[in-house]
Each structure stands twice: as structure tokens, then as C-alpha cells.
């Protein structure tokens, strides 16, 4: 049932000239107002990792959805091993041997880990009932294979975010597929898990699978991919062997222009403390947090996924209630009970979960942007549309948003462009302190540079930034100071000068360098809450 090494068709990855597994030709797909894919072609070879890269909204995820039967192409053909196929549903694609780790989590909180992995293809008893024992056993095997220590009988909702991602990966690998698609699989994983994923990909390659790998992280593309295909604005603008290209060339293909400096940190004048936090604690999520943020400073927060950074930031923003501690803004004690109050005091938070906490799908772009600033765009409580469009245009154009119109539903934008709308929304409130939680997660390299440049601009203009990030280069490149959190506490604080990646990782993982236990509960969570 599980993957046995299928040596019979395991061509060596260095010679992908073998039989094509999958050929896409002339694929077109339109959504109302958007041409997501036009005349796209793609080839996948056995035992080969093909990287698919492109800016946000280039059409990568759309292609994945077409390959997995979730969308149907308007035009074009899909050939599997030379035979033309049509996938009417996800089940068809699944049966044809295509499996995918999607960009969105495809999981069910109320079901057990094993059920999540085997939903739709669970082993049955002779009576046609689900064979639970076998299902749990096999789930255990798959999880082991990807090196995840997760109890197959645990309920998914009791797992941490990283473990959930591992379950999603296990789900994709639970079928004997010829083609494995990974849409930004490392976005939510920490250092250690990413390393394990790379090893897994190597093994899959050795087994002769064809792998389509989507990522915005260039370092990993160069590390694991053999071939590449670049999309720009729904078109295929280039393809070839990774070994025959380099970083700059790829970026140029992708963006259509050379990208400037990646971390254009400008020297900003560091002023007096704007935000002072002391003895800040929460009953269960973080304790004894104390730090100072100064005017014109970028303060980086590093930590492993689930270290409690987001919880802390959300408390500062008035979402969760802290139990103890004080916050001072410009030296004045501030009690922040709600986001509305935080905004009034000049603190804003760009959340990590874009879909749920950030963008408001269903509302047009301009209304998303003006939502926190309604007091400025209304007069006596009445809306003034012209003002709203003006404000929205001003900030979205600074972030180079790609959209058909300003009254387009935000939900129809690609992930990266949604993030731009969310950032624009906060900038429009003219804040003093911006908390950016994973600001460039899932953002393409061009926009990333734009966001970074923008951050520099902001601090130069006298704002202060707290940047939560799990990406070491970003932390190192952008921060003036770095605070490392571990298990809800501040583990270390570093100045930027002389800081290196290894120090950071060690601090985040625990001094001795040994890896801490996974911070999520794969063991049963205690019944009683606070």
C-alpha cells in the first residue's frame, strides 16, 4: 500500500531525458476578470524535482488545482504517460496517481490524525466498514517515514500548526502516487522540519517520483530542484535545468526586471523609547516579557514556530488579555483592551494568518484598506467614497498591488497580493508602531524586496517596527536588534552587529544545541484550561 522503492522506473535524476510522466500543453484558465493561466505548458520527469516559481498571482496554485482536478482548464490538454486525461474531480486525479500538498491546509480539526491521512481512501474490513486498526497502523508507518512523532489517534485540533503541516505531508504520501506536488510546503515549518522534508524529497526522487515544487525561497530551490519553470502573469516565461542558471537570471525571468538590493536597510536615526513592555505575562502562553522599542528601530523577533511570538503580539494589540505586566507608550502607561484602542494609540498589527485574520474576503480592496481608518474617511459617521478610493489608491500603489480594479473582491486576489492589501490597510492608519508578523511569508521575491524597502522607508520616517519572522536571512538583514523567544519566554537578545545564523538557531532551540521537544501537543492536552 505504501511506497516501495520502485526501482524498475527509477531513472537517475541526472538523466531526466527518460519518459515524460506528465505533459501539460496550452492550458488556459480564466476567472471573472482575471486570466490566471494562458497557454501554459509544463513537463514533469520521473525522479526529478521541478521547481515552479513566479510572483504572487502568477498562477502557480491555479495550475496545481488544475492538476489535482479541483479546477478544470478552459483549454489545453493534460497527458499522463502519453495518454490524454481529464480530471472532473479531485478523486479522478487522485486515482491517476497525482497527489498534492496544497498551499491551503486541507485538514479536518475534528477527525483523528489517521483519519485525516486516509480520508477518502481508508482501508476497509470485509463488511465495507472502515478498518480502524489497520488505518492507525498504516498512518503510523507514513508518519514515521516523514520523521514525525505524532500519535495517529490524536485529534488533529490538539496539534500545533507545524505538526498539522506534517500531517498534510503524510496525507499526500499515503497514496502510491507517481506525481507529488508541493505548493509552498515549507512556509509553516521550522528549521528542523524543513531539513527533514528535504531528506524526504531526496528519498522520493530516488523512488522515481516526479515532484513539482513551488516555493518563493530561492535558497531551497537551488538546493533541491533539478529543473525549473517560471510563470509570469499566467504565462510560462522560461524553463530549464537549475544547474544551467543562477539566482539573478531566475529573478529577472520571474519579475521581468532586475530586483534591487534585497535588504536595503537604511540607517535610520534611532530615537527614544516608543514602546516599553515590562513583566508582561499571560496565564498559559507567555511570561515575563520585557523589552523596549525605540523610535526608528526595527526590532526582530525570532523563534521556532509556536514559540509564542504571535500570542505576545496579539496581546500587545489587545486581542488576548495578559494577566500581568505593563505597557508604556511614549513613557505613558497604556492599558490596551481592544484592537480599536491599540490603533488609536498608534500600534498596529499585520497578522500572520492572512486569510482568517488579515484580509476580509467578500469586501472590495478599497473597503479593506479603509476599514481601520473609517474615522478619517467618514464625516459625522457618513461614508465618503471619493476619500476612500483616494486613500486606498495611495497606499496600494506604493506596494505595487496587482488587481483588476479597486472594487475587486479581496478574496479573488492571490495570497501575496492579499498580504499587500493588509499591509496597505495598516499603513493607511498612520501608526507609530507596526508589528509585522511574518510579513513576507508566501510573498514573491519582488514584492518581498518592496516590503523590505518600504520598511526601511517607514523607519526613516520615524516609525518603529516589530518584525516577527522565522526566516533567518530576513531577521539578520532587517533588524537593528533581535529578540529570540522560546516556549513563551525571551531566551536571548542580540544586537545586529556580529550576529550570525547559528547563534540564533541555538538560542531558539535551547542553549546546549539539542533540539527542544516539539512545542505542540501530540500528547493529550490537559483537560483543564486556565
Amino acid at each position, binding site marked *: 500500500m505504501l511506497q516501495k522503492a520502485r526501482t524498475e522506473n527509477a531513472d537517475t535524476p541526472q538523466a531526466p531525458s527518460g519518459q515524460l510522466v506528465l505533459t501539460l500543453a496550452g492550458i488556459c484558465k480564466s476567472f471573472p476578470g482575471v486570466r490566471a493561466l494562458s497557454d501554459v505548458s509544463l513537463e514533469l520527469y520521473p525522479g526529478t524535482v521541478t521547481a515552479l516559481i513566479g510572483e504572487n498571482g502568477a498562477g502557480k496554485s491555479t495550475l496545481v488545482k488544475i492538476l489535482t*482536478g479541483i479546477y478544470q482548464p478552459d483549454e489545453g490538454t493534460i497527458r499522463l504517460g502519453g495518454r490524454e486525461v481529464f480530471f472532473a474531480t*479531485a478523486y479522478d486525479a487522485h486515482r491517476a496517481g497525482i497527489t498534492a500538498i496544497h498551499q491551503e491546509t486541507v485538514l*479536518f480539526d475534528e477527525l483523528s490524525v489517521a483519519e485525516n491521512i486516509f480520508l477518502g481512501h481508508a482501508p476497509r474490513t470485509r463488511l465495507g466498514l472502515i478498518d480502524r486498526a489497520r488505518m492507525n497502523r498504516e498512518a503510523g508507518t507514513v508518519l514515521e517515514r516523514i520523521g514525525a512523532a505524532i500519535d495517529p489517534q490524536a485529534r488533529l485540533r490538539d496539534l500545533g500548526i507545524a505538526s498539522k503541516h506534517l500531517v498534510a505531508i503524510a496525507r499526500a504520501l499515503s497514496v502510491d502516487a507517481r506525481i507529488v506536488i508541493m505548493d509552498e510546503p515549507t512556509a509553516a515549518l521550522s528549521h528542523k522540519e524543513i531539513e527533514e522534508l528535504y531528506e524526504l524529497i531526496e528519498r522520493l526522487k530516488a523512488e522515481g517520483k516526479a515532484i513539482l515544487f513551488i516555493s518563493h525561497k530561492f535558497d531551497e530551490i537551488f538546493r533541491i530542484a533539478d529543473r525549473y519553470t517560471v510563470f509570469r502573469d499566467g504565462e510560462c516565461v522560461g524553463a530549464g535545468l537549475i544547474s544551467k542558471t543562477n539566482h539573478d537570471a531566475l529573478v529577472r525571468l520571474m519579475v521581468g526586471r532586475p530586483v534591487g538590493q534585497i535588504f536595503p536597510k537604511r540607517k535610520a536615526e534611532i530615537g527614544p523609547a516608543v514602546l516599553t513592555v515590562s513583566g508582561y505575562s499571560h496565564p*498559559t*502562553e507567555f511570561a515575563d516579557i520585557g523589552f523596549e522599542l525605540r523610535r526608528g528601530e526595527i526590532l526582530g523577533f525570532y523563534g521556532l514556530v509556536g514559540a509564542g511570538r504571535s500570542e505576545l503580539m496579539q496581546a500587545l494589540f489587545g486581542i488576548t488579555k495578559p494577566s500581568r505586566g505593563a505597557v508604556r507608550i511614549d513613557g505613558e502607561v497604556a492599558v490596551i483592551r481592544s484592537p480599536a484602542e491599540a490603533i488609536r494609540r498608534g500600534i498596529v498589527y499585520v497578522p500572520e494568518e492572512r486569510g482568517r485574520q488579515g484580509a476580509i474576503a467578500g469586501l472590495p480592496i478599497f473597503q479593506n484598506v479603509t476599514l481601520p481608518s473609517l474615522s478619517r474617511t467618514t464625516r459625522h459617521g457618513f461614508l465618503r467614497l471619493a476619500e476612500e478610493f483616494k486613500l486606498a489608491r495611495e497606499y496600494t500603489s506604493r506596494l505595487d498591488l496587482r488587481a483588476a480594479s479597486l472594487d475587486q473582491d479581496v478574496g479573488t486576489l492571490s495570497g501575496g497580493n492579499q498580504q499587500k492589501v493588509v499591509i496597505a490597510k495598516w499603513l493607511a492608519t498612520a501608526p507609530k508602531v507596526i508589528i509585522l508578523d511574518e510579513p513576507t511569508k508566501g510573498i514573491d521575491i519582488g514584492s518581498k524586496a518592496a516590503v523590505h524597502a518600504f520598511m526601511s522607508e517607514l523607519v526613516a520616517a520615524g516609525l518603529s517596527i516589530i518584525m516577527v519572522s522565522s526566516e533567518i536571512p530576513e531577521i539578520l538583514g532587517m533588524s537593528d536588534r533581535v529578540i529570540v523567544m522560546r*516556549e513563551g519566554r525571551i531566551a536571548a537578545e542580540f544586537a545586529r552587529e556580529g550576529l550570525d545564523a547559528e547563534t540564533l538557531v541555538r538560542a531558539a532551540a535551547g542553549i546546549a544545541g539539542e533540539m527542544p521537544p516539539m512545542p505542540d501537543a501530540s500528547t493529550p492536552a490537559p483537560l483543564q484550561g486556565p
Partner: protein
Amino acid sequence: MMRLLKSREILLAAAILVLLAAIAWRFPGFVRPANLANVFNDTAILIILALGQMMVILTRCIDLSMAANLALCGMVVAMLNATVPGIPIPLLILFGIGVGALLGAFNGILVWKVEIPPIVVTLGTLTIFRGIIFVISGGEWVNAHQMSAAFKALPRAPLLGLPMLSWIALAAIALMALFITRTPLGRAFYAVGGNPTAAVYTGIDVGRTRFLAFTLAGALAGLSGYLWVSRYAVAYVDIAGGFELDIIAACVIGGISIAGGIGSVGGAVLGALFFGVVKNALPVIDISPFWQLAISGSAIILAVAFNARAERRQGRLILRNREAAT
């Protein structure tokens, strides 16, 4: 996690026991086994309907038309029995179930193929079904004397000390438990309600699953239709009027999340029983009938608040070594 899963049902069972104890204090006769069996028998139809509604709610839908469906099926079998008394009762029951399934499928088709929100569909069919009863019956009642003896006897027939009605409910509970926990379709209900987008990605046809949930719920409503009219020995347009909200209340008291994806057969049954005990006990312990409505309303609110408390997420508990927290 087994503990967590079970705790909600255990809490509810405890609440029911406390309730029974309180009633026993005022009226000891109420907790005699014979009377408790009676209460169960009285709640049997609500239980069957709650099981149907549970499936629908699990898929993040809602069926407001179940009571009207019941009434229509009840009228159809009663009229059939009155005009052709010779039809064997099992056949008649099957026919009722079939009609119910058909009506449920009509809801389901509108939800699946036309993608109208379920609450709107069933708000519409609720009135349509009632109207159809009026049209086919001409507004006339089918009374006890028009029904055949066998027709009325079945739910009352005792077997091992319990009436058939109770046995039918018990069988429905057992089959449903097996179906929900051990079949792919049963699990698909949870998937579809828990995360519909993800369900599409896993190859589950969300619409079709919902359609099946509605159809099965309709079938159960059809069964209840026969049980209802034979038990109360009368069929008319308004039977079980307003019952749709009772069914939903029972499910919600049983911890079935109205947002879909959460709930269990045990919960649905206990929720219905809770409701049944409250409704049955009031007249028995001689509380003024004018208090009934207010008391059952408060019970719903309390039960829901209680459930929500139990279900509230306890945070992520990042700080595990709390001794260091001081």
C-alpha cells in the same frame, strides 16, 4: 483525546441524572423504571429525528423542514391506510420512508445542484410541504377509527417489556452509531462540515455528501411520520407543528455544533432525552402549564452556555513548565 471526545456526553448525561434526581425529590414516581421507559418511549420520535438532523448539521447545513416532512409522510401513510387498509404495515412503513427520503432528496438537490443555502431551501420547503398536506387531504383529518387496527398497534406492541416504538428508536441509534463512525460516508459528513474547502481537495463531493445527508434525514422523518400518526392515532395538516425547532434544540443541547463538523450520536440521543425529560416532567410534577415554555427555554440557553464552556479552547499552553513562571 478520547477523554475530551467523551467528556461532553458525560457532562450531559450527568445533567440529565441531576435533573431526574431533582424531579424524584418532588415526585418519586417519575423515576420508576416503568415511567422512565415511558419517557424514553415518548422521546423516541424526537431521538430518531434528532439523529437525522445531526447528519445534516454535521455537514454544516440545517433542515427546518423535518417536521413538515414528517407531517406529510404521516398524512400520506395514514390516507393510504384509510383507503386501502389491506396494505401490510411493513410495506406501508417502507413507503413512508421512501416518501420521506424523496422529500429530503428534494431539499438535497436544491442544496447540491442549485447551491441555495440550506436554511433558505428548508424554510421554503417547510411551507411547501405543509401546503401539500392541505392539498392532498383537502384539509381533512384522518382519525383513529379510519386507521386499521394493525396500523395503530405496531408502535405499541410490547417486546421484552418495551413497546416497539422504543425498539425502533434503539435500532436507529445503533445503526446510526455504526454508520457515522465506521463508514466512509459517515466520516465524510464530518469532513464536509468541518472544512468544506478541504473536503473538495480530498476528492469528496461536498454537494453530493450534503444531498445524501438530507436524503437520509428525510428517510428518518418519513419513518417518524408513520410512528407519529400511528402513535397519536390522528393525522392532520398541523401535526408536529413547530417541532422543527425542538429537533434542532435537541441536537444543540447534545453538543452538535451548529457550525458543522462536531457532534456524536451519543450527544444527539442525550440531547433529545434531556429535552424529553424536561418536557415530560413538567406536567407530571404539576408545574403550571404556563411555566412550561419559559422553563424549556431557559434549559436550552443553559445547556448551550454549558456546552460552549466545555468546548471553549483552552489556548495553546505554550508555557508548560509553570513552576518556573513565578
